[in-house]
């Protein structure tokens, strides 16, 4: 079994087989429009621009499951959210990525690569962990997706090579992508 056995719903509502991406290096990410906390769209776009001509694709799966609870928003001056606009990599239809209602692809991905903790050196790690402990302690149990921008790197053969938590910046995984290209 590999990611090629799964389908994903496109924004237009059609089922697309991931087998269409056979032979490519993939980065599968659960995304969310940003509310001043997870500015990873720009970095993901940079990765895509840098490697798309070498057989690299980013597949974004928007998900609202973690919305409305952005850690740190209490003491932030900013009181608005920005819609991801202008990204040119693939964005699929909105759907769940954790729990019983999760899309089968994400159940598979999280079973393949376990949660191994956040990178506590990342500035967002502590507020994120605090917010999860306070609001969703159950999210910290098991291997389910913990938050927006969890990234799975898939090799050219469909194998799940690595999992990166929201606390790993897209820029810092460039070397891992290069190693597979």
């Amino acid at each position: 079994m590999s990611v090629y056995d799964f389908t994903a719903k496109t924004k237009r509502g059609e089922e697309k087989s991931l087998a269409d991406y056979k032979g490519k290096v993939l980065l599968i990410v659960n995304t969310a429009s940003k509310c001043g906390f997870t500015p990873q769209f720009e970095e993901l776009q940079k990765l895509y621009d840098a490697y798309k001509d070498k057989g690299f694709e980013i597949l974004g799966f928007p998900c609202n499951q973690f919305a409305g609870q952005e850690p740190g928003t209490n003491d932030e001056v900013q009181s608005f959210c920005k819609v991801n606009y202008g990204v040119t990599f693939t964005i699929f239809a909105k759907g769940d990525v954790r729990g019983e209602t999760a899309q089968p692809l994400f159940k598979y991905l999280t079973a393949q690569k376990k949660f191994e903790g956040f990178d506590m050196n990342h500035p967002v790690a502590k507020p994120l962990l605090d917010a999860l402990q306070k609001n969703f302690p159950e999210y910290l149990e098991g291997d389910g997706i913990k938050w927006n921008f969890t990234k799975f790197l898939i090799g050219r053969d469909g194998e799940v090579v690595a999992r990166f938590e929201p606390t790993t910046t897209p820029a810092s995984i460039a070397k891992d992508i290069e190693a597979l290209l």
Partner: protein
Amino acid sequence: MVKVYSFEGCPWCDKVKKYLQARGVEYEVRDVEESEEAAKECLKISGDLAVPVTTIDGVNYVVGFDKRKIEELLATA
């Protein structure tokens, strides 16, 4: 009619909507993620896709959840 440019799951958008509800103000939701048309309108009004954007006439608008500014905007209606 008050229009709120927003998207589902945007906590600040929800605050504006709840505030308007509490004030008994009717409003129309324009979802900038679901509707390209709404996104274009929002861009035209504020020049950006930062939401919530609250407007009545499409000229004067308030970005974000700013009670004072929203009150001022409502007072012009």
